[in-house]
Each structure stands twice: as structure tokens, then as C-alpha cells.
């Protein structure tokens, strides 16, 4: 016993003496702290969570990408240029020559065909982004063809708006993988999915050096990237779940960038001289879903009344400042056709008038399923207080995320408060879920958010579906504008905020830009001085 005591005392003393000079981060390596426990796969055909998609964005190239600096305009990535046939059915992509994968294999049209084939055949969570254009595992090789080594021809099933198809090609599921390398690692016809979950086979700015789930991933810069070598040699992203720990690590200089600081921590580090903030609009929409199976919500006046009953300004100021901004329409800023109209503000008198018109002058009682996380709980409580001013008694039912979601998907909620994130960078992703409900029955195949709130809208469904066939980009944007204004008036959705992502970084770090989706969070321009 005495020996153990002595040993521990001695070693503790030595540690205390030696670690006073702690290790700073290596100069050519960018170190980030981030919550990465949402990653379930690094395979671009499967990854559909923020962190997994972000890794893919830095490891793989696609045919097309967007220019974040130019309001997300479409630009060629691996495709040098492309043409669309007059009937809007056939796309021909000319691939840049001389591009090599990390393995050294040359990138050819065959890799493009293989990448589409595996994404469509595997048909994992993001697979629908491609299959909605009529591809399936049987017809794919007829629809996606290599004309020669540098030319790919793709045929879609309907004359969709070119912006729609091309926007979808900018998402992670359309990444181009190294077919030779992936095939060499395939097992039992899995198209290498098992192997790609943890490894990479891309041509992008980085390769995956090591990935330990829930712990960290390390990316190695690709000096031969066709856009030029990244400005740093290595990026290491560590999973630090606790935002307070992220803040301490950042202040001590043990990390360069902290990705998940909360509102209070951001306010605190803002004061520090050696720390700066970077922010970018994210596509996330925070909204309330009112289930129209509840007879009160079946009345349009009640739905409108509740929109006048949320104190948007005060919630923004007191609860979500810096991390959300007010936004009242279903397309987030940065998307084609997004509008900035904010018709509603807090007006209890007007709400009362509308409730009286609906036959509820004294209000009514209703429940809301709330997942127990910040800032959702706080916002729900604020709304509870707001609604009380017009006699609407709101009962909050706390639950964990998966629990409230299970209930929501089964349409057994009264009100759901939550976020919706676009699946790809095209307006159709949100328009489809907020404004299409093909079959309001319980046997419906497509269970959109409109369906989940039992909102039966045959007319609006037709308009929304037609919007993806409008070839002219400006006319298409105008259709979404009209659609959103109508939606604001009558829908059972109280859309309140759009997310703003903020990250804090050491002052010697520059070049980090937060894009509108995880597909556009790029590490290559980050410089450390």
C-alpha cells in the first residue's frame, strides 16, 4: 500500500511539473472540435448526416458543384462543361482530363457510371435524390452511359427543370468514387459499402487517413488535387461532445476551431482578443407542425391565429440570438426562389379576434411534443407563455428525439416542434415535404410533412409537382414565390426561424467558410499563420 501511494504521488508530481508547457497544435494541421457522433458511414452513397456528408464533401469530387460566393450558382466540378438536349431529357457531361484518384488511378467516365450504379443499387438513405429521376438498379446502365473515356450521357425519365437535376448532382450521393479501388474491396456484392464506411476512395482535396467512430477522423491533404493543393497538410476533427469543453480547448489553443459552442459560450468567447467567429446561413428551418386531425387545427382561422401568437422577436433575442434568425417561409435563404417575407409578428389582439371567429373566444387546450434539448425546450416554454395571452392552454410533453419523432411519423401528435433540413440544394426538397400530399390516407406511400400533419391539399400538390418541370430558372423561382406566400397564409406550419451556424476559431486561422449545406463545408482553404 505504501509503495503504491509513493508511486502515485511521485508520478503526479512529475506530471504536474512537466506539462506546464502543453502541446500546441502542429502548424500545418488544422484541429477542430466537433460533435461527430452522428456519423453512421463515410460512404457517400450512404452518408446522410451532417458530419458524414461534411467528410464526403472534402474527400470526393462531383460532376457539378455550387459556388457559395455567388449565391450557390451551379458550376462544373469534375465536369468541364455540359449540355442539355432540347427536350430536357438527356444531359451530356464532358469530364476534365488528367484527373487522378488518391490511389493514382485515372478518373474516367467509367468511374462516373460505376458511382451512379452503386448509389442507385445500394439505394441507402440519400439514394432517392438520384432515383427520383427514374433510375433503378435494372435500367441504370441504359440511362447512364460512358460514350467515351471523357464523356458521360445521362437520361432522365421526365423533362425535369435542368436546375432541379443539376442541383441534385451537387449533393454527396452523386460523388464520384474510384471504381477500381472500391471493386477490389467489395464483398458479397456490397459495392464496397462495408469498406467505404470507414475508408475513402476519392479524388478530392483530402483522403481519409484514419477514422475512429465517436472519437475522431483525420484527413490527409491531396497535393495533386485538380484545384491545387489544400492550404494545410492535415485536418483532424475530434469528437468533443460537451460545448463547455470545446470552449476551454479553444481558449487554451489546443484546438483551432470549435464547431458546437452554444449561444452563451459564443457570447463569452466573442470578448477574447485571440478568438474570432465565422458564421453562415444553414438550410435548417425551425417550425411548429399543427396536426389537422385535431378538430381545432382543421379550422384555418385557428391556424392563422397561432401564427400571430408567437413572439418571434423576443424568442430570437433571448433564446437563439446568433444561432437562428427569423424566417417565415419554407425555403431557406440561399435556395432558388427563397423569399424574405415575414408577414407575422406578435399580436395577441388579432389572434383573439381570429379565435373568436373560429368559435373559440376563450381559447382551447392542446399538447405539444417537445424533445428535451436546447434550444427546443426553451422555445416551447416561451410559446407556452405567448399562447396563454389568448387563452390557449399549451401542455408540453417532453421526450427524447427518437420518441417524439416516432409519434410525429404516426400522426398521433397535436403539435410537433422541430427542425427540417433540406436534403439537397434544390427548392423541391422543401417544397415537396411542406407542400405535397398525394394521399392523405394512412396507407399513403409518400409520408411528407404535409401528410404527417394530415393536411389534404390536392390543388397545391399539383402546383408544386409542376414546378419541377419548369425549364426556365427565373419562372421556376417565381412559381416558388407564389407558392410560399399562399403557404404562409393557410398552412398548418408555423415557420419561425432559419438556423445560422457559427463556429469560433483562433485568430491565426483564416479561410474557413461555412456553406449552406454540409456538402459545402470545405476545409481546403483553411490557413494557419
Amino acid at each position: 500500500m505504501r509503495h503504491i501511494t509513493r508511486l502515485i504521488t511521485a508520478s503526479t508530481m512529475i506530471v504536474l511539473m512537466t506539462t506546464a508547457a502543453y502541446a500546441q497544435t502542429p502548424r500545418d494541421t488544422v484541429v477542430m472540435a466537433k460533435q461527430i457522433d452522428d456519423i453512421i458511414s463515410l460512404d457517400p452513397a450512404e452518408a446522410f448526416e451532417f458530419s458524414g456528408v461534411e467528410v464526403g464533401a472534402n474527400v470526393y469530387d462531383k460532376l457539378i458543384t455550387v459556388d457559395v460566393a455567388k449565391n450557390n450558382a451551379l458550376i462544373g466540378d469534375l465536369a468541364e462543361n455540359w449540355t442539355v438536349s432540347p427536350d430536357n431529357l438527356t444531359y451530356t457531361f464532358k469530364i476534365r482530363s488528367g484527373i487522378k484518384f488518391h490511389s493514382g488511378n485515372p478518373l474516367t467516365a467509367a468511374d462516373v457510371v460505376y458511382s451512379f450504379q452503386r448509389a442507385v443499387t445500394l439505394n441507402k438513405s440519400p439514394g432517392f435524390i438520384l432515383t427520383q429521376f427514374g433510375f433503378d438498379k435494372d435500367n441504370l446502365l441504359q440511362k447512364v452511359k460512358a460514350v467515351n473515356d471523357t464523356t458521360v450521357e445521362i437520361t432522365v425519365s421526365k423533362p425535369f427543370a435542368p436546375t432541379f437535376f443539376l442541383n441534385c448532382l451537387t449533393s454527396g450521393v452523386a460523388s464520384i468514387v474510384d471504381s477500381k479501388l472500391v471493386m477490389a474491396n467489395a464483398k458479397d456484392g456490397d459495392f464496397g459499402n462495408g469498406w467505404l464506411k470507414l475508408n475513402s476512395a476519392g479524388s478530392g482535396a483530402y483522403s481519409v487517413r484514419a477514422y475512429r467512430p465517436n472519437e475522431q477522423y483525420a484527413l490527409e491533404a491531396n497535393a495533386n488535387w485538380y484545384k491545387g493543393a489544400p492550404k494545410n497538410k492535415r485536418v483532424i476533427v475530434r469528437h468533443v461532445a460537451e460545448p463547455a469543453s470545446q470552449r476551454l480547448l479553444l481558449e487554451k489553443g489546443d484546438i483551432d476551431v470549435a464547431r458546437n459552442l452554444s449561444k452563451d459560450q459564443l457570447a463569452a468567447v466573442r470578448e477574447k482578443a485571440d478568438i474570432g467567429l465565422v458564421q453562415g446561413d444553414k438550410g435548417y428551418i425551425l417550425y411548429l407542425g399543427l396536426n389537422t386531425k385535431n378538430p381545432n387545427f382543421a379550422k384555418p382561422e385557428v391556424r392563422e391565429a397561432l401564427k400571430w401568437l408567437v413572439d418571434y422577436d423576443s424568442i430570437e433575442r433571448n433564446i437563439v440570438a446568433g444561432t437562428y434568425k427569423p424566417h417565415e417561409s419554407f425555403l431557406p435563404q440561399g435556395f432558388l426562389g427563397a423569399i424574405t417575407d415575414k408577414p407575422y409578428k406578435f399580436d395577441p389582439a388579432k389572434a383573439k379576434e381570429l379565435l373568436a371567429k373560429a368559435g373559440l373566444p376563450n381559447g382551447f387546450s392542446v399538447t405539444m411534443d417537445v424533445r428535451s434539448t436546447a434550444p427546443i425546450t426553451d422555445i416551447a416554454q416561451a410559446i407556452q407563455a405567448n399562447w396563454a395571452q389568448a387563452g390557449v392552454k399549451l401542455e408540453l410533453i417532453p421526450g427524447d428525439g427518437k420518441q417524439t419523432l416516432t409519434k410525429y411519423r404516426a400522426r398521433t401528435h397535436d403539435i410537433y416542434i422541430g427542425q427540417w433540413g433540406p436534403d439537397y440544394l434544390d427548392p423541391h426538397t422543401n417544397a415537396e415535404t411542406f407542400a405535397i400530399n398525394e394521399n392523405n390516407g394512412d396507407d399513403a406511400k409518400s409520408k411528407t410533412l404535409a401528410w404527417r400533419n394530415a393536411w389534404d391539399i390536392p390543388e397545391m400538390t399539383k402546383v408544386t409537382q409542376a414546378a419541377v418541370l419548369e425549364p426556365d430558372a427565373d419562372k421556376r423561382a417565381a412559381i416558388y414565390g407564389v407558392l410560399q406566400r399562399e403557404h404562409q397564409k393557410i398552412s398548418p406550419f408555423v415557420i419561425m426561424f432559419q438556423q445560422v451556424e457559427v463556429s469560433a476559431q483562433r485568430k491565426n486561422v483564416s479561410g474557413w467558410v461555412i456553406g449552406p449545406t454540409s456538402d459545402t463545408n470545405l476545409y481546403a482553404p483553411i490557413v494557419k499563420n
Partner: protein
Amino acid sequence: MARSSAPVTGPATVTSGPGPGRLARWGKMLSRELTTVAITMFGLLAITFLIARVIPIDPVLAVVGDNARPDVYEAARLALGLDKPLWQQFAIYVGKVFTGDLGTSILTAQPVISDIKRVFPATLELATLGTLVGITFGIPLGVLAAVKQGRWPDQLARFIGLFGYSIPIFWLGLMGLLLFYAKLGWVSGPGRISIAYQDFVTPVTGVILLDAAMQGEWDAFWNALSHLVLPSAVLGMFSLAYISRMTRSFMIAELQQQYVIAARVKGMSEARVIWRHALRNALVPLTTVIALSYANLLEGSVLTETIFAWPGLGRYITNGLLNADMNAVLGGTLVVGAIFIGVNLFADILGRIFDPRTR
């Protein structure tokens, strides 16, 4: 009161000497213990499985995400075997567990067994050092409190005990980080090892301190230790509180025994009476207490692991639970159950060795 097992095995031990009879008795005891273990493990399996299936959370959502199309959803449901009746699902699961297959985690896409092999050493490291801290400081503190019962050392020990017990561990952890890491710079911050050293050590056992020492990477060893000091001290604070309180009450009971009076009357030095005689007897029940507190730490401390970015078992299971990753939860619970049963068994055997009457 501390030797409840004595009447059962005690007399038999005295009459039967060494030889085949003793061996047979040990064999019998072992087979009885093993049967108990088997039944307990099966019960654990059945209950966790049932709980995992009846909670109102859809495990398919964990696989496919919120926005999956119906066909993708259905395919995932079939792949999970959720279309089969509950008893069949359970039978399949038990069959797999017996062949060492705990299934694949949804979150990490890895076999649960290899996940646990990866996260458990991190927890083991933390729990072992934490328990060492608890024993090293807790036992002397408890003895002191018992000997000076009612006087200021006792009050001090009570204060430390209450402090360690009632201060929320996340607060202690954050304050510790703020003071010793952020302000004073004496220890390293969250994480198991600094980025600069992380490639120095090849994982063999997974316990960084051991691996670094075996590979002669002493810089990495000290760095890892400087990361480990604070979280293990925070955990140790908790086990220190518990161990010191228990030591105190066991010691007070022992010090009132007649053999203590007899020893004092014989003129034995007070130090010898306390440390040699009373403490040795108090160690028998104390072993069980320490073992259980160790097992408690081995199951992983979610809050400590979260604050210190420590990729351990507690966080692994909690994460699985929050994301409806049922294979991970079931596998993790099974391992925790096995640890508890194993440590209990070990403490039982150790108790028998310490107690001369059961030898």
C-alpha cells in the same frame, strides 16, 4: 455483522483439512456460482431485450434517418428482422450472443464486440486510476475518522465524504478543467492524448499508459497521464467519499470487539492494534465495497466521459440509447452485467481468502 458467510462455511472449514474433500467443495461451490451466473446473465439478456423492444422508439429510424422513403424504410425493417414475432427475434439474438456475435452497431457500422474492445480500455484506465485514488486516500481517511471518532479529524472526513458524494460530478469536472487546465495549466485538457502524440503509440491493449510504457514512448506516456490525472481524480473523489465512509463504520465496529480490548490489555502498540488487527478484519467487508465501487466506475461514467471527451463505455451505451441503436445498448449492457457479476465473484473469493475461517 460483517461476516455473514462465516456460520455457513466456518465450522466445516475447521473440521476438514486439506485434501480431496476440500477440492470437491471448491468444485461444488464453483459450479453453484456458475449456475447463478448463467441464470443472472440470461435474465439480464431477456429483460434488456424486452425493454429495448417495448420502448416507444422506432429503431428503423436510427438506420434510415427522418426522411427515408417507404421502400428504404421497409428494407431496413426487414434487415433488422423486426417483421418476425418477438420470441423469434429473441431466440435469434440469444443464439447469436452464444456464438460471440453481438450484432452490428448502427451508429458506428462496426460489430458491437469490436466497438466494446475499443471503448472499454479507455474506461478501464479511468476507473482503475480512479479507484486507486479512492483506496489510497479513502482507507486512511476512514481509519483516521474511526479512531478519532467525534473529534475534528472525523468532522473533516465527514465533510470530505459529503463533498465528494453530493457535488455533481459534471460541475466538479468543469471546475477542475477551468482551474487546473485553463487557469493554471498543470494538466492537459479533454481527450486521452494530445494530437501531437497520438501517432506515437500503436494500440495493443488499448490502455494508452500500458501501450506507451511497453513501447518505450515515455513522452507519450507522460502526456497521456497528464490527460488522465484530472478525470481520474474527479472520479476518485466519488469513490474516495464512499470508501472512507464505509471504512469508518467497519472500523468502528471492529474497534468495539473484545479482541481489540484484549490486544490493548496485552500492551500492544496502538498503531499495531489499529493497522494490523482491526483494519485487517475490516478489510473483509471492505473488499466487497471497493469491488462494487470499482465495478460501478467500470460501467463508465457518462458525465465524466462527456466533459473530458473520453471515448469510453458509458458514453458508448448512452449514445446508443439516445439514437435507438439497440445492438449497441444490448451488447454494452451485457458487458456491464458480466463485469458486475465477475467483480462480485472475485470479491467473494477474495473475501474467503481474507477471512481465515473460510480458508
